[in-house]
């Protein structure tokens, strides 16, 4: 059927009105948050709780009226501890589901697998995990702790307590290698000695040779950066061989709650810097744990990633309400104002505009002989200063890269 000239003009007017009317309609729908977390596979013990934390935050926000009146809708995919699933679901969640923001990733390998896709489709992704630091990318907002928060507090404290000789056991992939680099640097800065470094392929579960190497070295303490269930067999084997050295870690206890899963005293004398674990005894923490267990009574453990995910949902809410829109550039502009903060389970935390990382209060947790937790030391409000100091400024430009101490941002 053909339209008369009069009809054509009318049709064009109608279509134009419909198109201009659509954005207004779209703003009224729910805010969709994509959740890509490992609910099965090797990492699930530490990450299934993150989904629950996001669900708890979502329920609390929706009960209070949502974000600027719009309810939150979660689009959850199980990435099965498989990097290819992360890539597949990141594409799906950005292209097909068209969510407003994504909460994704546990292992650093998974993050680096999906980051190019987030860059390609200009998604906004919250990475709520502690990691080896250095990601300078304006598509990423990182609420996890970084080496200058975890290692710069832990290693000097351990060296002062136990001695200057350090042995590092790290998982052999980007997280382990870069974290080991940080440890090396901090040990050198504090006048200590690296008496040994071993990188263990993921999936290795027999550590007799490693244990012997540690015993033959003069180590005063062992920095354990072991990831995954196979490598976690080390603690049991080291305890049964009576290695007897204190251990320092940025990943254990605070993520995989090994002190609850393994028999005492295999984790005795382990010191972990974490920004949150459920044993922290502050009013904010206890209230959070109570609300969490009210919604999820069978939750095995509430770890730092759960707290970070909960805080991240609330930070996102704040930024969207302040920006008045879910548009990513507007959100980044709000972040750039420098005062996006939230009073959560771990105290007051703020987002740093230059690196889009989060400040943290760091708790030093000590695992006792019976696997009970005490906190010998707390460091208040440590900024994620390294990236900003090294030259990453996301308010000015976006290199979309990851930097390490040996590969810092290029001099401007």
């Amino acid at each position, binding site marked *: 059927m053909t339209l008369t000239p009069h009809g054509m003009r009318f049709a064009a007017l109608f279509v134009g009105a419909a198109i201009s009317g659509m954005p207004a309609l779209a703003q009224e729908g729910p805010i969709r948050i994509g959740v890509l977390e490992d609910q*099965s*596979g*090797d990492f*699930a*013990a530490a990450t*299934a709780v993150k989904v629950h934390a996001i669900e708890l935050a979502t329920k609390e926000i929706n009960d209070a009226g949502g974000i600027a009146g719009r309810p939150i809708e979660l689009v959850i995919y199980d990435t099965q501890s498989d990097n290819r699933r992360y890539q597949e679901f990141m594409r799906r969640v950005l292209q097909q589901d068209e969510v407003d923001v994504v909460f994704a990733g546990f292992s650093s390998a998974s993050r680096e697998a999906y980051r190019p896709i987030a860059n390609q489709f200009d998604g906004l992704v919250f990475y709520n995990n502690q990691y080896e630091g250095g990601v300078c990318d304006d598509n990423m907002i990182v609420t996890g702790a970084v080496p200058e928060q975890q290692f710069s507090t832990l290693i000097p404290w351990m060296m002062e307590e136990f001695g200057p000789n350090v042995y590092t056991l790290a998982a*052999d992939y980007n997280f382990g290698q870069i974290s080991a680099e940080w440890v090396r640097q901090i040990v050198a800065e504090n006048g200590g000695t690296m008496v040994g470094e*071993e*990188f*263990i*392929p993921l*999936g*290795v*579960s*027999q550590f*007799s*040779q*490693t244990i*012997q190497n540690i*015993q*033959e070295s003069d180590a005063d303490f062992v920095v354990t950066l072991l990831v995954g*269930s*196979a490598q*976690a*067999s080390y603690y*049991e*084997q080291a*305890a*049964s*061989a*009576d*290695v007897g050295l204190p251990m320092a870690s940025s990943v254990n206890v605070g993520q995989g709650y090994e002190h609850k*899963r*393994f*028999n005492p005293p*295999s984790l005795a004398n382990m010191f972990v810097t974490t920004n949150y674990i459920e044993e922290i005894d502050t009013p904010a923490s206890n209230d959070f744990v109570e609300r969490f267990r009210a919604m999820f009574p069978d939750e*095995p453990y509430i770890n730092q990633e759960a707290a970070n995910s909960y805080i991240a949902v609330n930070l996102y809410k704040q930024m969207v309400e302040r920006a008045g829109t879910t548009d990513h550039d507007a959100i980044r502009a709000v972040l750039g104002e420098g005062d996006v903060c939230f009073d959560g389970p771990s105290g007051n935390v703020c987002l740093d505009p230059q690196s889009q990382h989060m400040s943290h209060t760091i708790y030093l947790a000590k695992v006792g002989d019976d696997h009970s937790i005490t906190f010998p030391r707390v460091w208040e409000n440590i900024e994620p200063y390294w990236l900003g100091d090294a030259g990453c400024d996301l308010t000015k430009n976006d290199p979309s890269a990851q930097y390490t101490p040996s590969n810092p941002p290029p001099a401007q």
Partner: protein
Amino acid sequence: MDFFHTIFSVMYQFGDAFAFLVISCAGLAVIFGMMGIINLAHGEFIMCGAYVTSAAGRAGLPLPLAILCGALAAAIVGIVVERLVIRHLYQRPLDSIIATWGISLIATQGVLILLGPTMAGVGTPLGSMALGERSYSIYRLVLFATSIGLLGSLYLLFYRTRFGVISRATIQKPAMARALGVDTRRVYGLTFGLGAGLAGLAGGLYAPTMTMVPTMGATFIVESFVTVVVGGADIFVGAAPAAAVLAIIRASLTAWYGHLFGQIGLLVAVIVVIRVMPGGLSGFLKRFQR
């Protein structure tokens, strides 16, 4: 004295690697080596044994009894699996790969769904002993002794008992065995069950030293297949010397260059052996027997 300590530590590392290879490959050597079934669910029989052992140990049974329970549970599961699935696949090796892989997936995901991502284990018993400036886990020395004992008992079983002779005869010449009145289907079922039980025994023996997750079988699979392939069809003339040779390669490379090179060494050894001795060590050694 220091020389003695060094020798002991070298022997300990070798014994540890040897024990791991022998114990983890025994079940596969029976099922794959003797029966020719490519059993990709081997790791899951190990996991079954480990889980039952841990559950029994936590329920109060002494550890040796708990390990036997684990082995028995895996054997029973093996007999059931054989009757339901494997029985139909004896002449179809490629299909047995897919079927056993499917069983493996069902087992790991099923355990994950039913029992969660992790299970509390039992601690390693027996403590440690110090020698010089190093200390050693006594349990791992027990594991080495167990691996030798395992080889000995399997030898006695297959070469000195009626069941062993019938089993070997049935696997080598099934038509002849049937002609002589042997119920070959029952023998196959029992032999497969024995292989599964040995896998369960491996799981039970290593359960106190490892974290219990549904995918824990994956850490045994590579070493088991490597040892059985290098060893060839016969457990005693093949898998045992293969385990010894591979243990030496792995222990020395891990000691000198680290875990990564230990694993690389194992895999390079397989490639070389398959190329040079396609029948494995036992095929090579048996040629001298005639």
